[in-house]
């Protein structure tokens, strides 16, 4: 009798708790009807310490003390707290491009500097830097041609790195992503959005001068040809390139290493001099990043 009663009471409590969660589940659209204006996830954007939409970093919580030190590559910084993260200096302080975390640090002279966290799982360039490439040619003041800009999440970080003296020419063919890219570019004056097919570089010849670096993340089977065509138009002699190769996109039947080797050969045939190849594990599977030079002047033999 008593045990049965208790059992029932417990069961009832269980159901009650379900009921407690139920209405929560029925809540419509999260904070959607908050009506905070076209800021999308307004609270997330406004609060620099709030958790980002992607993988929430456990260590870098609001209020924790962090140290920011420059990375070996110019323009990139590392923030050290409980966990380490790659950051770039925000060109437009106070704004998040894709709801990433922002970190404000005070200088000795009292000025505040804001940095944006760069997620290597979302950006191939960040993955390459994390992986440890020897030379990063995307540096402050450089002119960069970025093929495959998508919605502009990586492009924003490149724009942070090159700073106001440099310029990023972002090429993206898709209209949906292009819209986001243009919106992002309207806030950053060193990004030139180009909504064109990268296969036809002559279509944007009136917008792009000679550039120092070409970064390519197009994920197309004829990547090498696209890169070569663009380089012949816009990459200066002695300029550099970085290309992210997705093995499954080029040829999914052959082994990865074979695909990468093939692509490197193709690039060499077009006048590129690949200097290093780096796999993007553990951030991306089946990806490699190749960095090198273009039409490098032949080293004079010391006599």
């Amino acid at each position: 009798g008593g045990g049965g009663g208790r059992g029932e009471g417990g069961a009832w409590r269980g159901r009650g708790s379900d009921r407690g969660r139920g209405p929560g589940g029925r809540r419509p659209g999260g904070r959607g009807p908050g009506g905070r204006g076209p800021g999308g996830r307004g609270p997330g954007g406004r609060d620099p310490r709030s958790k980002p939409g992607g993988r929430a970093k456990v260590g870098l919580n609001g209020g924790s003390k962090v140290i920011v030190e420059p990375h070996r590559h110019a323009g990139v910084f590392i923030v050290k707290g409980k966990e380490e993260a790659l950051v770039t200096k925000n060109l437009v302080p106070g704004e998040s491009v894709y709801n990433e975390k922002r970190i404000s640090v005070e200088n000795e002279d009292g000025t505040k500097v804001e940095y944006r966290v760069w997620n290597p799982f979302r950006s191939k360039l960040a993955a390459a830097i994390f992986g440890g490439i020897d030379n990063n040619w995307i540096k402050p003041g450089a002119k960069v041609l970025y093929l495959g800009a998508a919605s502009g999440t990586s492009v924003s970080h490149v724009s942070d790195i090159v700073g106001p003296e440099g310029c990023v020419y972002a090429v993206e063919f898709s209209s949906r992503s292009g819209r986001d890219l243009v919106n992002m570019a309207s806030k950053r004056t060193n990004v030139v959005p180009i909504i064109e097919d990268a296969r036809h570089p002559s279509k944007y010849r009136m917008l792009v001068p000679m550039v120092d670096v070409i970064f390519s993340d197009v994920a197309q089977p004829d990547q090498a040809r696209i890169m070569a065509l663009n380089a012949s138009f816009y990459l200066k002699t002695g300029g550099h390139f970085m290309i992210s190769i997705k093995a499954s996109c080029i040829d999914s039947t052959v082994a990865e290493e074979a695909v990468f080797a093939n692509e490197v050969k193709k690039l060499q045939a077009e006048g590129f001099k690949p200097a290093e190849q780096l796999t993007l594990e553990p951030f991306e599977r089946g990806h490699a990043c190749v960095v090198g030079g273009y039409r490098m002047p032949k080293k004079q033999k010391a006599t």
Partner: protein
Amino acid sequence: MLVLFETPGGFALFKVLDEGRLSNVEDLGKEFASPDSARKMVKLKAFDKFDNTSEALEAVAKLLEGAPSKGLRKFLKANCEGETLAVADSKLGNVIKEKLKIDCVHNNAVMELLRGVRSQFTELISGLGDQDLAPMSLGLSHSLARYKLKFSSDKVDTMIIQAIGLLDDLDKELNTYAMRVREWYGWHFPELAKIIQDNILYAKSVKLMGNRINAAKLDFSEILADEVEAELKEAAVISMGTEVSDLDLLHIRELCDQVLSLAEYRAQLYDYLKSRMNTVAPNLTALVGELVGARLISHGGSLLNLAKQPGSTVQILGAEKALFRALKTKHATPKYGLIYHASVVGQAAPKHKGKISRSLAAKAVLAIRCDALGDGEDNTMGIENRAKLEARLRNLEGKDLGRLSGSAKGKPKIEVYDKDKKKGSGGLFTPAKTYNSAADSLLGQTSSKSVAEDSVEPSKKSKKKEKRKNKEVEVEDEPEKEEESKKKKKRKKAETETEAVEVAKEEKKKKKKKRKHEEEETSETPAKKKDKKDKKKKIKD
């Protein structure tokens, strides 16, 4: 040979000074390594500047389609006499050759040449430095991107959100000022506040008359109705308000002007909002109306944000306070929010408002998504859905009416057609028409079986003429009615069957009263009811 080079600032024509070097393609790059050597290779011949960004956009857009724009054609015609032109795009070259009869060339050497020119062109074109070029390039790229994305400034939903915010603000302000006018002028002429209820008419009247003494002389027929005018004039004479100076009246009049101009502007703003809503979200407007649609968009933040919400959210948008209170206290959640003010929901009866609001919300989200993400420019989808909703509303209301007017339950079962059936009328739908002797005149009939039958009937008929409140009469009425209705039963079986039917009918009577079957029965039922009531009365007595 001339080289056509496009920049964000304009078109440039370079003359190749040393054509011999062109044959050596690999070393061409070296020629452009420094500005001086570049200047030895090519020289700027002419430069056609774009006047403004729109001209640049137009020229470049045409170029991308493969056709030279007017400006370019003029430029080339003026400068390219007798020379070959090196172009970056072979298609463009072909078109130029066709239209302007200028020979165009496009090959590796040309590409290298262009490369070289591009690397040095800030030096080669004296008037165009790096700093000038950057903003031009930026502006041109943004315009081009917008052109490509078919960015139409009409379709921006920010205007809607601002307009509806302003509309609400205006309403508040208008009310505040109108109240202030009433209060202020009420010092001078308090009775007017009660005579004229409408704010705008009040302001107009005050503006017209100023001091109440003038009321008697002036004609208010454009503003007020005749009785009101008469009342006003009467009250003006016997008013107990104080005197006010001309300066005060001047200020009051200014305030009235403000009120009137605000009211006029509000009307204009509403028209603007309506036209914008029809451009930005035609389907949503067709479904819920302009005002409700604009409020929904404003509540959601933007049309795209609203498109991401599910139908259940749109249904209760605007009732968040009630919603979360109900969720916290485990009560019933609200059934409608902003959607309540849509005309379809307004038309529905109170107990159907919830259902219609849910259906409307479901269709509304489809319309919103169509507007936000689709390519269509018209409102066909919205109108179709609205028709569906109105049909549903009619259906809902029809169900109620159906309940009142009876249903098919209790109607005689329609038999399945069987051609070999022997009973009844056999394979016929309707029984074969037979002569109905009941309709015969019965005067002077001798007694025979048929006569006996007939005599039974007239007796029954006569009994029918008696007061129907008698139950026995009803029992006998029924066989008559059966015959009169002359459905499936043959006349010879009439009596036996009527008796059987009688019994059945008695049983039916004893059961709960069902819906009407035939006209006779309906007329019966009130009689039955009366009978029952009488019975009860008798019992009580």
